[in-house]
């Protein structure tokens, strides 16, 4: 067994490595943060890697975790060794099958990267709220605390489940362990073989359901026997802890790493003991060692096997001297006496008759990956030492409401001096994280040093900041928390210096490396005063490099990663400089070798150009700068923004006390307007001399950063001199002025607007009516212009826009603005358009996914309000239930309207017949009619206030529901085609007025490109790496089958007018409507500024036919299906070759690509042929209203 390797891997890979080698089938569904485990398994399966029995496991992606659990259950019952990976809501969807699997005493080990379950808000981060909800499933639950332990426990739990027949849920902390990269000793296949009892595998197979030895399972039982049968399983659970310890003992013999069901660390005669499980245990372990070295007598008991809970083992592990116990739970159960582990410990102490009757207090820590540090551990020990400690407490937050939180000393720092601690601030797009992963791999795998990397990402998808926390040291690293004092700080983006406090964590004497456009002699004067002061006070060694220029010169574009990495090695002293450079180059070759020589050479050039361009700055003795970092939000922002949101934006949300936060998770909308992100390097500037006033630029802008207004000339009185304006050309607003204005600080620089602009300068056609210019050159002027545009130019009265097409729609205020979506996003133009058309009377139920992240991820959210204070109300329930959730909105609205109607009728004598008739029979289609109805409702409310009747009071809050509302379910294809399809189908089958917008990126975008049933033939996606071999599900045709559903297939980049038409028809149709919208995506693999061009090809090739199916047309004697795209004129393969997702398949296997392209062509031709025939069919009229409802 001496050939074990030390590898730098993250927790997900560590676990997947064992699970893959010990199973035959893997059925999964992607969910953060467990997705990489399934992806690793799929990748290895594609590489034909083998398990320990020499066969390649079969990896199958399912339509939901419920589906994955069903497939797992079936596979297990049919005798295959089967595994799955999941987390959070996904785990909850598996619970029904888990109960069955356990009830049937099935050997099975699942691996869970424990993640917060959504409550008042969703969180992708880690705690134990998901696994704790599985306590009643009958699964054994084994916790691991670090990457190495996750690797080890994955094997121990697999062995134990085979030996005990009790299924196992092996869990580790989401992100903190699943995504931490650490140095591990990798288990060999021989190690694994030595742990897996072949006889038990045979027994598992022998229990399989097979017609060759038929038995029946899954029967229904009655009161006579069910109870006894439940009890029949007891012996297996009683034996299980012993089986786990045996597996642990066997593991220790093989590897030398000793584990126990409960591992105690600390003073043998400790009086104060923390009981904890998960990654926090290692932090506690590290703190215990420090405190005991300081003369304390404390200890920590790490719970590994949480279920079945062995009282005997627990009592034996706890020092007899224990007088005070603090049980720390990483989950919150409102209403319980205490959190789950706390309750079990209390029970175990009582049942185990532990001598001395120690006091037990229970604390909650680390929810949603909240930091858990030695300072917090110390605070818990300090609390235990108090005469009257808090019985229940929290640690890590400031609870100023119920005062349950412990105070802790933030400056308490126990990290040893011989550990190098480095922090890097970068942009997602500059490759900082990738380079840092490379660096720790070099150090961890190629030197004796231990290394650890943990990476913090923000929640924006464009201009996202990353913070890398890297540690290197001579011993295994148990510091499972972010770096609080760094001896190296790398700031890879110059702009950050003016925005964030990047030197806050710099230790005295630390090295500071800054990517600066200014050289060593000029940089000082360009730093904010705070930064200068920190550099002086902390006596930092300060280096600059113009990495952006070096990257540009060496053809690396915005990728400054290898340059900054080289500089880090050159000045950090972690490795000898030349040695480091040689290793960096070797790593580059390894990383990029197969991607081609050119990219390798450019990286080499970047490395070589780095050190020559890096210079140490002579630090002056005084801070001379006259500028300071501006506040995150301006003074005129609402109080909540300044008090709460600004801190979150600054990365200091941890400082917010409990009282600052809304207890039910309700926040105001319209907050992105206060977050000026300035992420676009270049922004579009309008040239009124060229413009033809089509408004296409405004319509396509994914971030509502280009706006159009028509207004009276007189409004220009206070316009800045630089403000551009022109006469409006068309008849509808003849005599008025027109302006297209960019929001320079909100634009992401995607260039979609420039590419879509049809107006060119006749003498210089590359100059269009809108052109990109460097942001820094124009931002000051355009900021003022935009402010004037927004604040001083009035929004147009909606009823005055009579022609609602692409152009007209852009005069409506976008009520979805400046989201954190990717630059060039293909989804958000639809959302924005929708918000312009109906935002003031719209309620959105959003499926979890990209649209819920850019739509609802704090700190700021993009849905906003008009000048009347109206705007979309928005909520996200789950991934799978957006259709049903939104349908619930409709049920409520209809109920409110029904009651309001009844009350208005009942109050007719007071209100007057005219008012009643007008209110209840009003035509509410069209902006003027909506406005008129709102006025009627206002009049009604005024009148109601004068009526002394309980019915009037009851009607008052319901009156607004007499104005027509637009209910929308939003989501992506993962929701609509896969996990949410059942619900979506049911909602479509109901004759209610609900609208569904499916933004089809043909892949799970938010979780990183896994195949969905919308993925087209020939596209490479995760779980379809060789190119999808079956056709895309025709969701539209399936919906048309109901006949009462309005269906539209649209593509903004191909036919924007059709999009506007489809949205209006869907809204006006008094029944279910489904719009399937082609949405280009970064997961397609091409420059998204060309998204519209590619959409045109999608349509012209027949891949994405445009149509509208309107049931109302039946009564007009017309075919309900209308084609909006012509017969295909281009080849599907030409469309495919433009995108990496298809091209990847061609590069790997040209023959397969050719076959798939041919299939895609015929699939597409057939689909278009079917539609074209349907578009010629008229059918007899139905019940007269077209929506399936009786009148």
């Amino acid at each position, binding site marked *: 067994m001496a050939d074990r390797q030390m590898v730098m891997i993250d927790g997900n890979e560590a676990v997947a490595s064992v699970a893959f080698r010990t199973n035959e089938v893997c059925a999964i569904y992607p969910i953060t943060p467990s997705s990489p485990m399934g992806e690793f398994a799929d990748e290895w399966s594609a590489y034909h890697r083998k398990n320990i029995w020499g066969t390649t496991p079969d990896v199958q992606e399912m339509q939901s975790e419920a589906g994955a659990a069903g497939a797992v259950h079936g596979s297990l019952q049919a005798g295959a060794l089967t595994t799955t990976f999941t987390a959070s809501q996904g785990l909850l969807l598996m619970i029904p099958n888990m109960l069955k699997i356990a009830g049937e005493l099935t050997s099975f080990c699942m691996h869970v990267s424990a993640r917060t379950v959504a409550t008042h808000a969703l969180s992708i981060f880690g705690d134990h709220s998901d696994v704790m909800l599985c306590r009643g499933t009958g699964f054994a639950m084994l916790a691991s605390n670090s990457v190495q332990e996750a690797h080890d426990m994955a094997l121990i739990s697999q062995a134990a489940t085979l030996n005990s027949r009790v299924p196992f849920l092996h869990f580790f902390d989401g992100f903190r362990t699943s995504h931490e990269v650490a140095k591990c000793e990798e288990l060999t296949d021989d190690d694994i073989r030595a742990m897996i009892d072949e006889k038990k595998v045979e027994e598992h197979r022998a229990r399989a359901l097979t017609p060759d030895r038929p038995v029946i399972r899954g029967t229904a039982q009655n009161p006579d026997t069910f109870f006894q049968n439940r009890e029949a399983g007891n012996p297996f659970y009683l034996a299980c802890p012993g089986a786990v310890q045996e597996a642990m003992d066997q593991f220790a013999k093989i590897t030398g790493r000793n584990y126990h069901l409960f591992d105690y660390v600390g003073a043998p005669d400790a009086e104060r003991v923390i009981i904890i499980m998960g990654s926090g245990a290692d932090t506690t372990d590290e703190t215990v060692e420090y405190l005991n070295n300081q003369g304390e007598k404390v200890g920590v008991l790490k719970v590994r096997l949480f279920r079945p809970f062995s009282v005997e083992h627990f009592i034996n592990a706890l020092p007899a001297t224990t007088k005070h116990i603090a049980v720390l739970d990483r989950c919150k159960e409102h209403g319980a006496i205490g959190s789950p582990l706390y309750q079990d410990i209390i029970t175990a102490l009582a049942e185990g008759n532990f001598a001395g009757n120690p006091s037990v207090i229970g604390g909650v820590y680390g929810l949603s990956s909240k930091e858990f540090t030695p300072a917090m551990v110390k605070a818990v020990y300090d609390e235990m030492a108090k005469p009257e400690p808090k019985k229940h407490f929290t640690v890590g937050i400031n609870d100023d409401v119920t005062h349950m939180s412990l105070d802790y000393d933030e400056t308490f720092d126990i990290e040893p001096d011989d550990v190098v601690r480095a922090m890097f601030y970068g942009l997602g797009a500059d490759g900082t994280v990738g380079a840092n992963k490379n660096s720790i791999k070099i150090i961890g795998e190629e030197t004796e040093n231990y290394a650890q990397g943990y990476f913090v990402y923000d929640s924006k998808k464009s201009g996202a900041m990353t913070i890398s926390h890297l540690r290197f040291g001579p011993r295994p690293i148990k510091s499972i928390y972010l770096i609080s004092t760094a001896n190296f700080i790398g700031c890879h983006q110059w702009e950050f210096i003016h925005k964030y406090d990047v030197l806050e964590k710099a230790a005295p004497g630390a090295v500071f490396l800054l990517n600066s456009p200014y050289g060593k002699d000029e940089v000082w004067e360009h730093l904010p005063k705070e930064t200068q002061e920190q550099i002086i006070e902390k006596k930092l060694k300060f280096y600059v490099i113009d990495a952006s220029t070096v990257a540009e010169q060496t053809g690396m574009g915005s990728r400054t990663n290898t340059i900054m990495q080289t500089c880090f090695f050159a000045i950090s002293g972690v490795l000898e400089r030349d040695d480091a450079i040689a290793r960096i180059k070797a790593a580059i070759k390894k990383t990029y070798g197969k991607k081609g020589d050119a990219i390798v050479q450019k990286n080499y050039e970047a490395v070589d150009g780095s050190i020559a361009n890096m210079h140490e700055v002579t630090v002056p003795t005084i801070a001379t700068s006259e500028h300071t970092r501006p506040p995150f939000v301006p003074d005129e922002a609402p109080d909540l923004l300044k008090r709460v949101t600004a801190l979150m934006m600054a990365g200091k949300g941890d400082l917010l006390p409990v009282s600052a936060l809304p207890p039910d998770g309700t926040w105001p909308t319209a907050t992105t307007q206060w977050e000026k992100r300035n992420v676009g390097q270049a922004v579009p500037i309008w040239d009124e001399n060229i413009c033809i006033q089509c408004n296409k630029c405004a319509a396509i802008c994914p971030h509502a950063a280009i706006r159009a207004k028509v207004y009276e000339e007189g409004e220009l009185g206070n316009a800045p001199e630089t403000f551009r304006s022109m006469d409006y050309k068309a008849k509808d607003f003849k005599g008025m002025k027109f302006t297209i204005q960019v929001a320079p600080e909100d634009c992401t620089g995607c260039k979609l607007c420039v590419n879509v602009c049809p107006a060119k300068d006749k003498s210089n056609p590359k100059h269009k009516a809108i052109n990109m210019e460097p942001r820094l050159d124009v931002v000051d002027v355009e900021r003022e212009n935009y402010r004037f545009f927004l604040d001083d130019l009035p929004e147009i009265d909606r009823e005055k826009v009579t022609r609602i097409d692409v152009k007209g729609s852009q005069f409506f205020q976008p009520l979805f603005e400046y989201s954190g979506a990717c630059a060039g996003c293909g989804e958000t133009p639809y959302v924005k358009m929708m918000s312009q058309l109906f935002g003031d009377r719209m309620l959105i139920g959003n499926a979890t996914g990209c649209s819920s*992240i850019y739509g609802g991820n704090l700190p700021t959210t993009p849905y906003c309000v008009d000048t009347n204070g109206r705007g979309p109300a928005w909520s996200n329930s789950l991934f799978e239930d957006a259709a049903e959730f939104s349908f619930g909105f409709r049920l409520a609205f209809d109920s409110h309207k029904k009651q309001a109607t009844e009350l208005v009728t009942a109050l007719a004598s007071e209100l007057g017949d005219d008012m009643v008739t007008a209110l209840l029979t009003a035509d509410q289609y069209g902006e003027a009619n909506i406005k008129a109805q709102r006025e009627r409702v206002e009049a009604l409310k005024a009148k109601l206030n004068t009526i002394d009747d309980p019915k009037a009071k009851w009607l008052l809050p319901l009156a607004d529901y007499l104005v027509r509302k637009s209910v929308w379910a939003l989501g992506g294809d993962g929701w609509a085609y896969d996990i949410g399809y059942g619900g979506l189908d049911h909602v479509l089958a109901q004759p209610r007025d609900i609208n569904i917008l499916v933004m089809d990126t043909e892949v799970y975008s938010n979780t990183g490109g896994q195949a969905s049933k919308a993925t087209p033939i020939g596209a490479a996606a995760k779980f379809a790496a060789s190119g999808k071999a079956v056709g895309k599900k025709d969701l539209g045709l399936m919906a048309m089958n109901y006949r009462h559903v309005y269906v539209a297939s649209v593509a903004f980049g191909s036919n924007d007018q059709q999009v506007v038409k489809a949205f209006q028809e869907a809204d006006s149709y008094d029944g279910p409507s489904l719009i399937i919208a082609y949405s280009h995506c970064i997961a397609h*693999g091409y420059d998204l500024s060309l998204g519209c061009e590619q959409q045109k090809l999608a349509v012209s090739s027949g891949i994405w036919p445009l149509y509208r199916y309107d049931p109302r047309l039946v009564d007009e004697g017309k075919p309900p299906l209308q084609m909006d795209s012509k017969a295909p004129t281009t080849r599907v393969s030409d469309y495919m070759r433009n995108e990496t997702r298809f091209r*990847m398949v061609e590069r790997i296997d*040209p023959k397969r690509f050719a076959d798939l392209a041919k299939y895609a062509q015929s699939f597409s031709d057939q689909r278009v042929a079917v539609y074209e025939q349907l578009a010629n069919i008229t059918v007899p009229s139905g019940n007269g209203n077209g929506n399936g409802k009786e009148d």
Partner: protein
Amino acid sequence: MNLSTTYLGLDLPHPFMPGACPLTADVDNIKKLEEAGASAVVMHSLFEEQITREEMAVTGTIDTPAESFAEALSYFPDPEDFFLGPDEYLEQIRLAKDAVDIPIIGSINGTTLGGWLKYAELIAQAGADALELNVYSMPSDPETDGQSVEKTTVEMIGAVKEKVSIPVAVKLSPFYSSLPNFAQHLDSIGTDGLVLFNRFYQPDIDVEALEVERKLQLSNSSELLLRLRWLAILSGMKRNYSLAVTGGVHSGMDAIKAAMTGADAIQIVSALLVGGMSKLGEIKQQMSDWMEEHEYESLQQMIGSMDLQRCPDAHAYERANYMHILQSWEGAV
């Protein structure tokens, strides 16, 4: 009729072969071309610029969004066998070599010396019988003079010759100040063949959209005349290289003229794209019939018979002839 010829040292049963074009990008097509009677196949060109751009673009689209967002550390699968670079092209050469018996001539269009050398070597290793270097550069820098363009090209070809042992042809454009002098330089470094001429893709203008339209204009017989002139001039020179014509051969008569002015090999593209692969056999038959009719014994008897050295009126290939043609045209108006 004995149409056998020698081109780039390759003994061929006749001079007709498809030139570098999309048809030769597919192994099934190469098989069909062999069945249609092609004596050799010039593969479609491997464009260094295209490979480099694809490497950068694909790497960019994969890497840039990666490691940016906590829920998606990547957006694409990472197949073990996904390689960028020239592998696709090299694999086609290997497959073509396995699929057919006729010689396979690789074709490169490079932009850097390193690229020319690397790809030449890889194509030779992949089994190509010969190499055609498609010198397709459009100098747009006013600081670059004609001499340095030629010097760079000669150095590049010399370096390739040193690197590979298979025969090397150079496909030229007609736009050199002194093609004979340039050809002599190429001869001196061991160039095995010259291919006359490259047809640049000539973009069109969409006047409504104010956009440049990339269009492939197919050749016609009128384009042959320029090639005949230069074939005749080069063929008559003392030389060690063979000559091929490409561009403008659409009939047996065109082929006869090309052979008479010195072409050892005749590359056909447009005629095949328009008329199908069988066109190759038709042209060959037309030539053969004409030669039978005119009692030629072999193609060798014909090759170069009308070149600058042997034609009855050598001045016709030179300026005087040009002047005469212009004058006669004016007269016609």
